[in-house]
């Protein structure tokens, strides 16, 4: 993954989330406060503005750190610090290498999830973005040893989407949805949904057809 591809990832995220804005907000209306769509859209729009200011050669790690910092500074809510930390940690893991190989990308994704868990203290099964991210990262690494990057990315996307769907029957223990207790059951978690969108964007960004 190079600077151009990581930038493409971020722009793919921005486009896909803006497109799903109302859907994400509707999911949040059911078990939260109806702002996840606007929060994420606001944040990634700011990330795109930020990317325009970076010069082409900026190493992937630095791009992700800048993107994460921008999310922290513009999103607010729970998702701002959490997604911001995820991208910053991934970026830090990549240092200032100009090229990132699939294994390093795996470590970066690991660091991202670890950052979210460290900050938000969510366990798998708590009905949060972690329930989409963790399986995605596990699937990526599993598919990678022996397999191709493309397969690993495809496995990660599929696992994220499965993890997203698996949040439906869960009883929320973290975030606003936890205030609903039993009533949180039967609804898909908004943050897990944006996690699936972001993993799918990564796959598109790194696929050969630009």
């Amino acid at each position, binding site marked *: 993954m190079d600077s151009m591809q990581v930038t493409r990832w971020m722009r793919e995220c921005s486009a896909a989330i803006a497109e799903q804005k109302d859907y994400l*907000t*509707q999911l949040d*209306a*059911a*078990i*939260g*406060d*109806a*702002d996840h769509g*606007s*929060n994420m859209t*606001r944040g990634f729009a700011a990330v795109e503005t930020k990317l325009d200011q970076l010069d082409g050669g900026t190493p992937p790690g630095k791009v992700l750190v800048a993107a994460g910092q921008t999310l*922290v*500074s*513009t*999103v*607010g*809510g*729970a*998702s*701002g*610090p*959490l997604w911001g930390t995820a991208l910053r940690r991934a970026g830090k893991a990549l240092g200032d290498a100009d090229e990132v190989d699939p294994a390093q990308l795996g470590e970066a994704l690991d660091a991202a999830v670890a950052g979210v868990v460290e*900050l*938000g203290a969510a*366990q798998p099964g708590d009905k949060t973005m972690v329930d989409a991210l963790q399986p995605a990262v596990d699937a990526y690494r599993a598919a990678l040893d022996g397999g191709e990057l493309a397969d690993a990315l495809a496995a990660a996307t599929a696992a994220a989407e499965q993890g997203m769907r698996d949040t439906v029957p869960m009883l929320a*223990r*973290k*975030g*606003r949805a*936890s*205030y*609903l*207790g039993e*009533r949180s059951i039967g609804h898909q978690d908004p943050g897990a949904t944006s996690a699936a969108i972001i993993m799918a964007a990564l796959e598109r960004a790194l696929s050969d057809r630009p």
Partner: protein
Amino acid sequence: MSVVAQVVKKFINDPETVVPEALAGMAVAHAGLLRVDLENQLVLRADAPVQGKVGLVSGGGSGHEPLHGGLVGLGMLDAACAGAVFTSPVPDQMAAATRAVEGGAGVLHIVKNYTGDVLNFRMAAELAEDEGLQVESVVIDDDVAVQDSLYTAGRRGVGATVLAEKLAGARAEQGGSLAEVAGIAKKVNARTRSFGVALTSCATPASGTPIFDLGPDEIEVGVGIHGEPGRRREKLAPAGEIVGMMLDPILEDLKPASGSSVLAFVNGLGGTPLLELYLLFNEVSKQLGEQGVSIGRSLVGNYITSLEMAGASITLLTLDDELTALWDAPVKTAALRWGV
């Protein structure tokens, strides 16, 4: 929960600019009392920073007015950070507020216990500490409608926030140290419990439609202040019964000794007429009397709201001489004012 198609009409120009426009209005309406930093969406005490005084910073999503901006002033907050409607502000705003009120005695962050508010304030505190500022944080979590547990996000911060800001603010005005001021906020939180009921939902300017849907004879029991549904849905009942539904879990958790004196706070969620809030307060005082609990101090009105939601919350704080004296101390804000 199905989202209702029905629209909620609002006095706005553009959903994106509601908060800065309202802040600009506050700046004109309360010139002399407040200063507004539009870039960081901060409401600041006109004379901030007050040298030698602990600075009090709070904030959160907008839509809860007069909380927090209307509670900025002598004897209460030094700064309030305004986020988008129902969305916590970002660390940059909170750090800017912390710098703006730092008067040499440190800064207290009063944080409502919502994941977003807690995480953003935590990051802000780290930023401020990196700059060498001294910051203490107290998290408010008084809502007994939410089960408390180590494994969950825990209770929400609601009515106790107003009381903690008043009482800790009074201590700061008296020259209390950062530890003492934080101690009062923690003491208030430990001695306060709240419970809310909604008769209708509310709509954010961005979405324009009610967050949830309630039947003509249904109420949401155990709601917070973000238009979120409550713990359960019940049939509409006489006010006396509804007050019972609210007081029982509060008293069960607070366990005030019979003969003890409380500050009773009946708060409107935004769309309920004052006439009804006083009627509810009358029920609260009757039912507390039956329990042998007396009302030492009172507050009735819209102080921590959920946009135009029709509903109310009850908050009880068990008083002692120290807290009673701090409550009576002068306060000069847009929403709470006495003694000056």
